[in-house]
């Protein structure tokens, strides 16, 4: 059972997509697993013949448990750590776990010698038990958001900056680009926002990476998390890998594919936990500004509000211009406002010259 995010402790196997004897390649979908973030397609880490399926659909197993065996991997027949080894649990944690209906054996302890602490229980996702119904899945997503955002507000000293940008150049360029192309090759403004943010993140490593036990570690690539709202509530932010390196058309196609798959409940395991910085856009909802919350262990998130036509002073005159308010929430343990201001200014620079994106 792979870990699909820092908050994940266990997952429920929903369905096998392979049978013993099947030959799978790296990246092939092997199974569907239900997590607090919804149902995820689990991709194979390796190539080979499936010899045996160990876990049955409906079973909830902890992160690290062996789900299946590949042929010719006898070493894996003996699990490195017996799954049956009992987890040590502090008494207070045990009592609280009973109250909440959580099985502490499914948790990874963070106390001395791996003891499950009261805090581990408090932070544990609830809702363990029988395989979930769609409604339970929705509650699971709400719970995953609660766990992650509570941790963020508790641990991350956020600072916020906001910059209003004139989008006239970007919108003019976009209109011209789209006018000469058939529907499938057109771009949405979101693709420009994502690319501009990804490129700014590549230039300013203090906003792109993870804050772990050893402090901040900048990521080598920009894996851009994109917040996607689910119809009827809930939100997930899977990653577009190496977004700064991709052309706008490629980025647009990947974004479109991702949105559809997420809403259909088909995220891939490689997308769900790898984001190094996140973008959230509430432009379609008509709000001026979004004050986003960092998704731990990331250290920054960029929010785009609606594009609205407003008076704007330019060269001593007042003109109507399409404006957008862009917000940065960043981790003060890693960067300061001055660097944050430079980061936002880079996003503006890129959006001012969209032809160079």
């Amino acid at each position, binding site marked *: 059972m792979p870990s699909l995010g820092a908050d994940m402790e266990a997952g429920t196997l929903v369905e096998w997509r392979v049978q013993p004897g099947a030959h799978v390649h790296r990246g092939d979908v092997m199974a569907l697993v239900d997590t607090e973030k919804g149902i995820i397609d689990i991709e194979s880490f390796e190539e080979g013949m499936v010899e045996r399926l160990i876990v049955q659909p409906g079973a909830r197993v902890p992160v690290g448990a062996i789900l299946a065996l590949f042929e010719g991997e006898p070493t894996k027949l003996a699990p490195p750590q017996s799954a049956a080894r009992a987890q040590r649990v502090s008494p207070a944690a045990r009592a609280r776990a009973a109250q909440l209906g959580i099985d502490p054996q499914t948790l990874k302890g963070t106390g001395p010698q791996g003891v499950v602490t009261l805090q581990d229980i408090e932070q544990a996702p609830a809702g363990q038990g029988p395989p979930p119904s769609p409604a339970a899945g929705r509650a699971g997503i709400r719970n995953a958001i609660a766990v992650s955002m509570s941790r963020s507000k508790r641990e991350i000293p956020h600072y916020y900056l906001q910059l209003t940008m004139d989008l006239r150049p970007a919108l003019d360029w976009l*209109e011209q680009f*789209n*006018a000469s192309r*058939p*529907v*499938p090759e*057109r771009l*949405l*403004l*979101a693709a420009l926002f994502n690319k501009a943010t990804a490129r700014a993140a590549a230039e300013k490593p203090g906003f792109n990476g993870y804050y772990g036990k050893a402090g901040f570690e900048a990521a080598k690539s920009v894996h851009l998390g994109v917040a996607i*709202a*689910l*119809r*009827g509530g809930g939100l997930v932010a899977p990653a577009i890998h190496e977004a700064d390196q991709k052309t706008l058309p490629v980025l647009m196609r990947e*974004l*479109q594919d991702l*949105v*559809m798959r997420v*809403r*259909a*409940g088909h995220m891939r395991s490689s997308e769900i936990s790898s984001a190094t910085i996140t973008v959230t856009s509430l*432009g*379609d909802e008509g709000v001026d500004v979004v004050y986003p919350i960092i998704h731990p262990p990331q250290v920054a998130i960029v929010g785009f509000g609606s594009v609205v036509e407003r008076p704007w002073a330019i060269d001593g005159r007042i003109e109507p211009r399409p404006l957008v308010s862009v917000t940065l929430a960043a981790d003060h343990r890693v960067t300061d406002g001055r660097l944050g201001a430079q980061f936002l200014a880079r996003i503006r620079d890129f959006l001012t010259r969209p032809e160079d994106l």
Partner: protein
Amino acid sequence: MSGSSAAVEPALGAQILALLVEIAPDVDPAAVRPAEDFRRQFDFDSMDVFSFATALHAKFGLDIPERDYRQLASLEKCAAYVAAKLGDRHAPPAALKS
């Protein structure tokens, strides 16, 4: 808020509904109210509208300019738009009439 003239032609309506479910698999086709905007019914955002236009383009071979996207806003509007576009294509070009 009906006001819309024609009922949706059933075969065309079914084709459009199939496309809708393809791009938004979390929408229940049986629950679609033909006169109501997709945005209101299903929280459609700009990406949904774009994907819908892409699917219509692929299915019917229509060129749909961006300024026409708003005419795809509900099942009724969309069916009327597609029917009109297909009709245009089948009609002989004006220049050939004499």
